[in-house]
């Protein structure tokens, strides 16, 4: 018989909110909204709101289940040690119940309020993030981010499917863009928080293969990402507003990735400035490119 664990007081509602990773959710909601607004079929504002709410709740559920499963990793990393579970502010079981309940609710609500296609893709994205990325890949392979990146690439597809009830070439290219954007984005972060990942035993690429390989991979992944970003224009799926914005912002991304890919860390300590710059710009880049997509559809 094991000694009884001391009972925690009920978690504060703010801790449940923190479980949903609200900052990550912002980008997910934005790309989902843009996918919906870029669709050729206008969606009723009430149905559109319901779809975006379901995307947000689904992302929150995935985040909660991720934190439930990774509580031990989070405790070992400075960046995540203050989350509700590693900080001891919440029972693990509460996080599990919350995540499963929220995920099931988001999919069922999407099914009844919006349509079957959007609900099916939402369910697939939650399951992919939790089972494929969190449970299967994250602790096993340095390619965790590459394959797991698909989970974050689903929202534009869901938004589009919510408006049209089906999937087309443009949202598939948007999926490819976010999918290929994820490795340079996360590896730039992994380069400057490498020690954190190493301490937690997460096989991120800089920990396992070293900085040089990681830098080269950032450069390599940026090439197909740039192709996916620009492709909708020559394919006639978008107009010049998107095309010119995609060219300009992707060129800046490419320049920053080139700097990161070709340099070596200064042993005297340069605070990893180019890597931090690329990480920050990569977030802005996605906002700009998806914003341009909507502007192109509405104003061109």
């Amino acid at each position, binding site marked *: 018989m094991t000694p009884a664990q001391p009972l925690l*007081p*009920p*978690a*504060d*509602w703010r801790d449940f909110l923190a479980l949903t990773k609200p900052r990550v959710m912002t980008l997910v909601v934005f790309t989902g909204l843009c996918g919906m607004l870029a669709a050729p079929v206008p969606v*009723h504002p*009430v*149905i559109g*709101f*319901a779809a975006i*709410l379901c995307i947000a709740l689904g992302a929150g559920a995935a985040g909660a289940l991720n934190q439930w499963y990774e509580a031990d990793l989070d405790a070992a990393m400075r960046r995540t040690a203050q989350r509700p579970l590693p900080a001891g502010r919440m029972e693990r079981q509460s996080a599990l119940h919350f995540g499963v309940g929220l995920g099931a609710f988001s999919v069922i609500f999407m099914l009844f*309020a919006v349509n079957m296609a959007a609900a099916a893709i939402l369910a697939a994205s939650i399951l992919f993030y939790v089972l494929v990325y969190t449970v299967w890949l994250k602790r096993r392979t340095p390619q965790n981010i590459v394959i797991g990146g698909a989970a974050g690439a689903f929202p534009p597809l869901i938004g589009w499917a919510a408006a049209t009830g089906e999937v087309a070439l443009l949202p598939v290219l948007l999926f490819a863009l976010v999918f290929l954007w994820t490795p340079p984005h996360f590896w730039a972060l992994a380069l400057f928080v490498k020690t954190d990942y190493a301490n937690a035993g997460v096989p991120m690429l800089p920990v396992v293969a070293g900085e040089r390989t990681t830098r080269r991979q950032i450069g390599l992944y940026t090439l197909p990402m740039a192709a996916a970003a620009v492709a909708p224009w020559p394919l006639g799926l978008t107009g010049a507003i998107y095309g010119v914005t995609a060219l300009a912002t992707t060129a800046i991304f490419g320049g920053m990735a080139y700097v990161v890919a070709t340099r070596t860390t200064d042993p005297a300590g340069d605070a990893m400035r180019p890597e931090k710059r690329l990480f920050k710009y990569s977030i802005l880049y996605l906002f700009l490119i998806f914003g341009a997509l909507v502007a192109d559809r509405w104003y061109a």
Partner: protein
Amino acid sequence: MRHDDEDLIRKRQKGRAMVLALLLGALAVLVFFITLTRIQQGLPENAPSASGRGTTPAAPAR
């Protein structure tokens, strides 16, 4: 159980109950509007409105 612990538990329970009540209220409002939207989308364009008059004039009978 200490008095402070009991206060904390009550405070958290009250906060969670309040947030849950607000969320359920918002959900009820959302479901109401979704239902209205679905009904509107399901009706043909010249269907009679609640007042008994059509939204678009019907063609005269020959």
